């Protein structure tokens, strides 16, 4: 038996291939971050309120309901046990019942989330399609009038309260000009006419080939989506510009010019290729920020998404719903980060 004697100080290194080890380390760090996220929400929901039970069952609960919830939350047990219950529940997709809708919070979130995603996705598309070229041109023509315009556009975007700009947009394009649909996702006429497949009305109405409903939904989404698009444009164009400036002063760009390449090819084939990886991170980050920006935008436009859900829950002290929505948004944040790290590894030859 002496040959298998265990010596804790000299553990043999696990004979794992390096990619597997890298994956394991990444997975471990992701789990720690997720656990931390759950701990923060647990702390906010169960430790900080003086009466966590009331926050869950509401103030009009009977003595029995109160007692049942007390036991269910495990408030008679030590904090660490309560936390493990909480993690267990969340891992099973159980965020408890919503006070307001009297339905499981997870069902509610599943219902409202597609609306937010539809909005944020169109927003980020606008931000990328306009922001990236604007940033590149501003860097190439540094100091020109187009650079100045890009600067002002970004500065205004950074400084404008999004909910106010939304109100102004609604006032101008809906109230005065009548170019777009008003608040909400659909006109009254089309409400509940489209069978829900993905939960995203533009997609669903296209699937159902109901082009009237599609046009209607489009006229409702275009204003809030442009608004979010403008915010991500401000950020994306600014970051693109500074990344490009860095690359354009790099020596390999001179090499490309020495070869006799046109300026256009130097910019897009050489310099731009080098910022793709950084851009992916920026885009992932601004997509995540759009989910956040959508909280205020959804309220202005009465958009039935997760931001609206979260705020309504907040105002009616529906703690389970608040925490559920917070956890989901946090998880999406983390997933976007992982996703951009992954793309980084794929696109950058130096990371292999």
């Amino acid at each position: 038996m002496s040959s298998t004697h265990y010596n804790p100080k000299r553990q043999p290194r696990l004979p794992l291939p390096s990619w597997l080890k890298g994956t394991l380390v990444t997975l471990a760090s992701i789990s720690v971050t997720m656990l931390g996220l759950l701990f923060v929400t647990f702390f906010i929901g169960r430790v900080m309120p003086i009466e966590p039970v009331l926050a869950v069952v509401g103030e009009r609960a009977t003595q029995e309901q109160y007692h049942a919830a007390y036991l269910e939350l495990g408030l008679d047990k030590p904090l660490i046990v309560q936390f493990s219950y909480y993690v267990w529940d969340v891992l099973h997709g159980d965020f408890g019942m919503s006070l307001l809708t009297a339905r499981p919070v997870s069902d509610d979130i599943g219902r409202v989330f597609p609306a937010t995603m539809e909005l944020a996705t169109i927003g980020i598309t606008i931000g990328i399609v306009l922001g990236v070229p604007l940033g590149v041109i501003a860097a190439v023509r540094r100091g020109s009038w187009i650079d100045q315009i890009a600067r002002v556009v970004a500065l205004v975007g950074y400084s404008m309260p999004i909910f106010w700009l939304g109100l102004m947009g609604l006032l101008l394009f809906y109230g005065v000009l009548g170019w777009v649909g008003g608040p909400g996702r659909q006109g009254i006429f089309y409400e509940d006419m489209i069978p829900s497949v993905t939960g995203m009305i533009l997609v669903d109405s296209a699937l159902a080939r109901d082009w009237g409903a599609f046009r209607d939904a489009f006229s409702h989404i275009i204003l809030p989506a442009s608004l979010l698009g403008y915010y991500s444009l401000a950020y994306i164009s600014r970051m693109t510009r500074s990344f490009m400036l860095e690359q354009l002063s790099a020596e390999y760009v001179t090499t490309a010019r020495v070869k006799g390449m046109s300026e256009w090819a130097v910019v897009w084939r050489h310099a731009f290729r080098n910022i793709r990886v950084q851009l992916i991170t920026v885009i992932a980050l601004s997509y995540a920020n759009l989910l956040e920006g959508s909280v205020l935008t959804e309220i202005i436009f009465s958009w039935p998404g997760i931001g609206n859900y979260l705020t309504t829950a907040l105002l009616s002290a529906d703690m389970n719903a608040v925490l559920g929505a917070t956890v989901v948004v946090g998880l999406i944040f983390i997933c976007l980060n992982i996703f951009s790290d992954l793309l980084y590894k794929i696109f950058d030859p130096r990371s292999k």
Partner: protein
Amino acid sequence: MSSQSLTLRQWLLTDTPTSRRQARFAALYKGWLSLRSNHMAMIGLAILVVLVGSAVFAPLLAPHDPFVQNLANRLQPLGTEGHILGTDSLGRDILSRMIYGSRITLYIVALVAMIAPVAGLLVGTVSGYAGGWTDIVLMRITDIFLAFPRLVLALAFVAALGAGIENAVLAISLTAWPPYARMARAETLTIRSSDYISAIRLQGAGPMRIITKHIWPLCISSLIVRVTLDMAGIILAAAGLGFLGLGAQPPSPEWGAMISEGRRFILDHWWIATMPGLAIFAVSLAFNLLGDGLRDVLDPKDSAS
């Protein structure tokens, strides 16, 4: 030539300062000169001076009491006699409310600026200097806070703490410190390994002394830039919380809350929501402009533009 015969300007611009104090003032003065040549930054500074002025002299400047209601005189448009910016749904003078609102904005900005950067600096320098497990644990915590969208986390905090200005400040601070910690840690790591820190250590300086006397002062300039630029975001977050009814409570003339009140009348009485929005925009723009200017002066290596 005695120092008395020098003008103050010459004393400040000398290439051969005779005391540490003179060198420090001279550096500040030169920074000010280069900031002054930046028109955008000066516009920003001017707006902030107006903000501070209107906050300090609110009772003198405001034509009306911001809380007095006059239902007979409600929803007056712009340019009404005695109410240049009109009145809101309860007949209160909008201009007066905006002037008093600058106090709340300033209060929030000042509090957050005192809490978040200091907390971040503390965590970041300790983490960077200590290294090892302390570093890993502190940075993990920082990452966890960074994993939340700021506004959503602030909302959750306010939900647990209850609505109100102080809780809004606390919630915003709790979400604002992690970037400062990251930044301070990065700076500490580069400073820590430099030769002059080794020299100080050889002279027997302890970690407390090194951190407070040698690392903090070097982090300050980039911190100031970052704080100034962040102020814009903080004002927007505070206004957002106010707009959602989770920050300052009515009848407080907080600008975000004023927009929220005006929202119901947006199509017919647009000015009620428009005016406070313009104020938020102006102040947040001012911080962005000033921050850009300060970055050029204090942190020339970062200014790409």
